[in-house]
């Protein structure tokens, strides 16, 4: 922190939707040059608060001061005028334009004839990148960049627009470790120049690594503001969940009979050069973890098993019998379910209700001669909502109005209603708050306890360690290690193996 001067001061902000108070007299301040973590469960009010600062929502009462001046922000343009920049989770870049063209989108340099001055745009963009200590080819098309560089371009765009306050919402959600390092380096550099950063994240290690202070919200109220040097992770979790005793995920040793016929066998699975000769077995009631870095081929493997992508080689067996799976319909018929990586894009129809979404996977079992049976539907939907504790428990609510964690519960619920034998889960807890994460992991255990088998992809090693019976470490499309859970000491141990460092 370079000074105690609050560049942003949000005072007693309140906001209601449909008479429900989403923010209740929340005060939030960011000093110039600090990285300020904003934490809380989904639905705690973080994004509403930040959307007010960006002019997406208008506050009901309260006051915003920027650099000591009272301001009113009603649009993105207003926010930009006051130096507030947002780095969007879903990137706002135009993929077919170059990095330079994106950085100066809508503020293009023009020459005397009022044509775009590409040279000047490129020169200025290079300066911005140099300033940030980034080595990005500014003439490259954005679509050819990796996620991390797209994100850095997004930041460069905000900085080139003279942003003094940057809001980052879960910026590392899809970045690999070294990409995170590059991002953090840039963030540190920005703070040295007096830029303030609001950092929204569910990842405790990151918050401790780069943030100076933390503000925790719960149920629309500010619970605490603290220097991170003065608060322990346990305290933070306790403030976020509001529960005194925080349930950490601990592994319950259970024995899996591996002498019986495997419920599922994959041998020599090949998908282009992304998945390379992968062979493994899965037993009834077993939870098999797939560990690995982003891009290691885990997602491609389960997509191929589920029939979403074409397999270039390999064979599958279920209960010892050969099966061929060419599309998701055949996979489902063989008892598979897939909880996909991106629930918003692949899992749900956001504008449809909870009921309609649950229906989508179960059309044939909930109908007779292609006519929907509404009594069955209502029963199944009601049961799903209670069993999976979807909140609020309203069948007709559009899923876009639910929190991330509850959306994920809907995805799991609709697949469990198909009564699958083998459940494939791809990063089921991404962007889900801590309380719900634990609930989802308990669901995974409960699914296995019913005798179903689970293949779980997760980048959160504590989750894998908490529930898996066996862990396959995937590296460059191959199984690099097969680990029995009891042979893994702790998270650091697993991390080393995943990173490929000799233990």
């Amino acid at each position, binding site marked *: 922190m370079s000074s105690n001067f609050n560049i942003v001061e949000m005072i007693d902000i309140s906001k209601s939707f449909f008479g429900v108070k989403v923010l209740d007299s929340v005060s939030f301040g960011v000093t110039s040059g600090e990285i300020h973590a904003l934490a809380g469960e989904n639905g705690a009010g973080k994004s509403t608060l930040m959307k007010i600062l960006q002019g997406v929502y208008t506050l009901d009462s309260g006051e915003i001061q920027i650099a000591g001046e009272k301001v009113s922000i009603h649009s993105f343009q207003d926010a930009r005028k006051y130096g507030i920049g947002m780095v969007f989770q879903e990137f706002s870049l135009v993929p077919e334009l170059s990095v330079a063209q994106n950085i100066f989108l809508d503020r293009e340099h023009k020459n005397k004839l009022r044509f775009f001055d590409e040279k000047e745009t490129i020169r200025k963009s290079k300066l911005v990148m140099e300033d940030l200590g980034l080595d990005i080819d500014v003439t490259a098309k954005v679509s050819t960049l990796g996620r991390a560089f797209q994100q850095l371009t997004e930041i460069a765009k905000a900085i080139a627009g003279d942003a003094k306050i940057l809001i980052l919402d879960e910026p590392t959600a899809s970045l690999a470790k070294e990409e995170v390092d590059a991002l953090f380096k840039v963030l540190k550099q920005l703070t040295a120049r007096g830029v303030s950063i609001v950092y929204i994240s569910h990842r405790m290690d990151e918050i401790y690594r780069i943030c100076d202070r933390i503000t925790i919200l719960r149920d629309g109220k500010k619970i605490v503001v603290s220097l991170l040097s003065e608060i322990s992770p346990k305290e933070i979790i306790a403030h976020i969940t509001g529960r005194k005793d925080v349930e950490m995920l601990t592994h319950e040793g259970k024995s899996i009979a591996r002498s019986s016929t495997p419920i599922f066998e994959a041998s020599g699975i090949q998908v282009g050069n992304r998945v390379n000769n992968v062979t493994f077995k899965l037993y009834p009631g077993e939870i098999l973890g797939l560990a690995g870095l982003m891009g290691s081929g885990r997602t491609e493997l389960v997509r191929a098993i589920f029939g*979403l992508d074409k397999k270039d080689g390999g064979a599958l067996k279920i209960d010892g019998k050969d099966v061929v799976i060419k599309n998701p319909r055949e996979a489902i018929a063989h008892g598979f379910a897939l909880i996909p990586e991106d629930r918003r894009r692949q899992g749900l*129809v956001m504008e449809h209700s909870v009921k*309609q979404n649950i*229906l989508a996977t179960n059309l044939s079992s909930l*109908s007779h001669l*292609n*006519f929907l049976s509404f009594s069955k539907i209502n029963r199944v939907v009601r049961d799903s909502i209670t069993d999976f504790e979807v909140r609020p428990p309203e069948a007709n609510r559009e899923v876009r109005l639910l929190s991330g964690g509850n959306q994920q519960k809907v995805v799991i619920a609709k697949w469990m209603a198909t009564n699958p034998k083998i459940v494939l889960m791809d990063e089921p807890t991404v962007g889900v708050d801590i309380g719900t994460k634990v609930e989802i992991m308990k669901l995974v255990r409960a699914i296995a306890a019913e005798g179903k088998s689970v293949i779980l992809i997760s980048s959160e090693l504590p989750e894998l360690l908490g529930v898996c019976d066996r862990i396959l470490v995937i590296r460059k499309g191959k199984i690099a290690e097969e680990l029995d859970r009891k042979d893994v000491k702790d998270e650091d141990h697993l991390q080393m193996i995943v990173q490929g460092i000799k233990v």
Partner: protein
Amino acid sequence: MILSSIKKIDIRATLIYWMFAVIFLLFALLLHDDGFLQSNNLLNIFRQTATITVMAVAMTFVISAAEIDLSIGGVAGLASVVGAIMLRDHGLIQGILGGLAIGFVVGSLNGLLVAYVGIPSFLVTLGMQGVAIGFAALVTNYYPIPILNDTFNAIFGSGTIGWFPGLLLWSFTAVLIGWIMLTKTTFGRRVLATGGNRDAAEFNGINTKNVKFKVMLISSVVASIAGLLYAGRLQTGRYEWGAGDELSAIAAVILGGTSLFGGSGRIIGTFFGALLVGLINNGLILAGLPVSQQQIVRGLIIILAVALAKKK
């Protein structure tokens, strides 16, 4: 912001009924002396709207699946012509089957190109519209083909059951079947899921290509039925029948509250949307406007109404 958008959606759900009521009252007042309210005129509105209603019901499925079909007017014209020729040369059943066959052939082609080859439906059907109209003009050399078969004309046109006009029965049947299919069957859900989020639908094991193929096929077959209705009502087959109906049908669907972006569909709304389009046509004729002015006013009213019904 969320609050206002929710309100907007609620308005959108009932907007068509308000618009219908307002315009009806307006015409009732302004055109009272021109016989707007006479039962004969009101029945006429229903009769003239039947073809649009039938096509709009099918179009609701197409738009719900996030596709579009611009070829329906052309298909109706071609079906009327082929139906009339087959009827003249071979007989009643052959005439009806000939007309329907046009729908099957064009619909299969549309479906194949859209779902399996992956060409945007907007382009496929725009091209197909020209092909269909061109064919219809070619085989008839631009001449109308008169239909002298009274049974055909009764079934598809002027026939009544008691006092109840047969064309109305066609409308109601289409609406009823459409409503049941969209809200009560697995197919309806597959259409909505596909239009709402194709990726998610595919992950769910829904064969989205098959869904898209089917909605395109249904749309064309229904358009060919509409072509037979034109032929029956006007007792001729002619390449011009149905020209421009795609716009009226799309307007009816959007006015009825179906999202232009797919994923939602309202059959009853579509029905009233079609009636509103028919109402406007009728009112403008009664008001004595020349065709050119009718077109201008109709176009503007439709744009305005669709703008009001637009999803925020």
